[in-house]
C-alpha cells in the first residue's frame, strides 16, 4: 500500500501548510488500527487528541470530588507569641542602637585629642547673668575663695606646693 499521500500530508503538517480538512484526514488515518510502522511515531500526535476528546469522567468522579471537598480539613491556627510579633521592632531598635553606638564611637575617635580632654558640653549652660559686670563679680568672688583655700592649704601641704610650684612666703 502506498502511503505517499499521508507522508506528504505529514510533511505539510510540519510546515503548517495543511488545511483543516487535511488534518482531519490525518486524524482519521492515524485513528485506525493498522498504521504502518514508519508512521507509528506520529500516531500519538494525531490519534491522541481524539482519544483525549473521547475520554470521559466516570460516574464516581463527581462523588470523589464532593467527598474531597467535604472532608474536614483541620486548619491549625498558628500561635504567634508577643516576642515573635514584636521581633521587627526589636530588630529596628537593635539597628538604631548599633548605628548610634558606632556613630558615637566614630565621632569620638575622629575628635582631636584636645577636644576629647576638653569635652564639656557648654551648649547646655544657661547663664545666670545678663550683665558681664555681675558675671565678673561672681567669678572674682569664686576665684578669691579658691585662692584663699589654695593659699591656706599650700602653707601646710608640701605636696600641694610641689603640684602648683609655689614656695611659701619667707622661704
Amino acid at each position, binding site marked *: 500500500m502506498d502511503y505517499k499521500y499521508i507522508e506528504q500530508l505529514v510533511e505539510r503538517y510540519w510546515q503548517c501548510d495543511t488545511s483543516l480538512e487535511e488534518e482531519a484526514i490525518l486524524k482519521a488515518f492515524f485513528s485506525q488500527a493498522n498504521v504502518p510502522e514508519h508512521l507509528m511515531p506520529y500516531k500519538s500526535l494525531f490519534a491522541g487528541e481524539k482519544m483525549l476528546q473521547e475520554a470521559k469522567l466516570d460516574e464516581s468522579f463527581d462523588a470523589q470530588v464532593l467527598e474531597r471537598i467535604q472532608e474536614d480539613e483541620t486548619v491549625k491556627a498558628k500561635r504567634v507569641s508577643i*516576642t515573635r510579633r514584636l521581633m521587627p521592632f*526589636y530588630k529596628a*531598635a*537593635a539597628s*538604631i*542602637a*548599633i548605628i*548610634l*553606638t558606632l556613630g*558615637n564611637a566614630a565621632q569620638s575617635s575622629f575628635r582631636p585629642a584636645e577636644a576629647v*580632654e*576638653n*569635652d*564639656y*558640653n*557648654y551648649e*547646655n*549652660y*544657661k*547663664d*545666670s*547673668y545678663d550683665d*558681664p*559686670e555681675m*558675671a*565678673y*563679680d*561672681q*567669678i*572674682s*568672688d*569664686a*576665684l*578669691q*575663695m*579658691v*585662692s*584663699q*583655700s*589654695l*593659699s*591656706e*592649704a*599650700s602653707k*601646710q*601641704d608640701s605636696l*600641694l606646693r610641689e*603640684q*602648683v*610650684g*609655689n614656695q611659701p612666703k619667707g622661704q
Partner: protein
Amino acid sequence: MRRVLCLLCYIACLIPSAWGQDFATKFMEQCGEKDKMECQTVSPKMMEKVMDILADPDKNEDEEVQEYLLSKLKSARIITADRHAEKLFRKAESLIEKNKNRFSPLAEDSAGDHNRIFVRRHDDVVRELVMLQLSPGKDLLTIVDLTGEMDEKFMKLLSSGELKDD
C-alpha cells in the same frame, strides 16, 4: 536576646547624655535636692563678654593678673546651699570619690574635711577645678567648679594668696 537589645538601646541613649558633663552638672543632677541649692553659671559666651570689659589698655598689675586668670577660664559654676549643707557636702565628696579616675585631690584643709579641692588634669593643664567648701557654723556649702585651660602659671597665681578682692 531581648535583654541584650534593651541594654544596647540604653547604652546608645546614655552615651551622648553622659558625655560632656562637668562636676557641677552631675552633682545637681544626682543630688536630687535642687530646691535646696542655687547654681550660678557663667558660660563661655559670657566669659568672652567679661574679657571684653576687661580690655582696658591702662590696667594695673592686679587687673592684669585678673585678666590672665579669666583668660584661662572657659566657664564657672558656683553652687551654694544654705540648708543641709553637711549632708550635701558628703554627697559631693562621694560623687568625687566615684569619679576618682577623673578627679585627683589637690588640697584639703588641716582638719581635712571642710575644704577640699580636686582637679582634672591633662597634659599638665588643669581642665577642671572643683572646690568643696563647708562652713558648718553657717550651715553653708559652696562648690566652685571652674573649667578651662589652667596652666602652671594660673595655679601659681591662684595659690599665691595675692589675689586682690575688688
